[in-house]
């Protein structure tokens, strides 16, 4: 079961199996959608602005390699 919590700044935050994920375009010239697991605090931060959402993405990428969605 997947629920969309928010869709802002080109990012989608979803809840799946009680975990939060941020989904976004991988940013390459030829791209697809990828996701990283994030914390509740990061999800709240990513709601605020595009810059904050980007910080969340970079921090999440440092912890774990993103996985492909689409």
């Amino acid at each position, binding site marked *: 079961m997947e629920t969309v919590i928010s869709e802002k700044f*080109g990012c989608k935050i979803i809840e799946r199996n009680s975990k939060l994920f941020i989904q*976004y375009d991988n*940013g390459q*010239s*030829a*791209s697809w959608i990828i996701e990283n697991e994030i914390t509740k605090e990061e999800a709240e931060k990513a709601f605020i602005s*595009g810059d904050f959402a980007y910080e969340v993405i970079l921090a999440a990428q440092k912890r774990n390699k993103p996985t492909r969605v*689409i």
Partner: protein
Amino acid sequence: MKFLLQILFLLFTWFNLSATTAFSKVALPNQTVFFHKTTNQNQESEVKNGVSNFARSGILENSFSQKAVLWESFVLENRAREENVNVVSGAGSLVSKLTGIAKNAHENLLLGGVKFIDDGVSIKYLTKNGAEFAKIENGKILLTKADGKWPLPSEYLDANYISTHLSKFDGGVTKITSYNPTGSVGPPGGTFVLPKSQADLLIQQAGGDVNKLEDLLGLKRGDLGTNPFRIDINNPSGLRMPSGNEAGANEFWIPGGKTSGRILEATVDQIQLGSYVKKTVF
């Protein structure tokens, strides 16, 4: 006749001595290479203009690309022969042994006027301030800056190289997606793009075959799905030389504005709805 042969022999000897002076064959333990702006920059511009019209990855059958690659090699060699440039040939030179991604990364940086030190084991690249920021070792390019972030391109690339590179995107930029975009495109920090003219050429060469387009772009088959979209932006916001610190820069990213597959790249701000034209690639 004998006299003529003697003159020819003298001329041949003189030519060889001259060549030795210009292109030293003496192996030295350490070499610092400095580049100066010269007439070769005009040659580089010519090369770059040629390179901008094709992607070398997978389309070497294109005769123009072959000519451009040869010409580019010629220019790179000439740069190394310039005044104040020391070249190590044979033992002690790692540059001459580079292949693949490492070779492409070195060529990018060489064309960008980056200073480097080749000690035969590694090639260390320096910013304009003389600080090491990257090295090639064991066939890989590695970031060596202590903070783990690539320096700004302006800190190590010639300003002229950057402006020439970005001018190749003047005709608009393109991004290809495996999905159907409905809002902003790219992560919030910005996205990589390629020149629209190069995208047109690659798509034309793919001839309606998504797998072939993936090959041309250096992707894995299946990466673009079955019905990819192209996003064209005539006036992109924030066009800049990639830094390597972007969310879209993966472990294969190399500095200098050309991918390891030799596709031209720049970054732009996140592409907002209303600023782009979307259509299917084929």
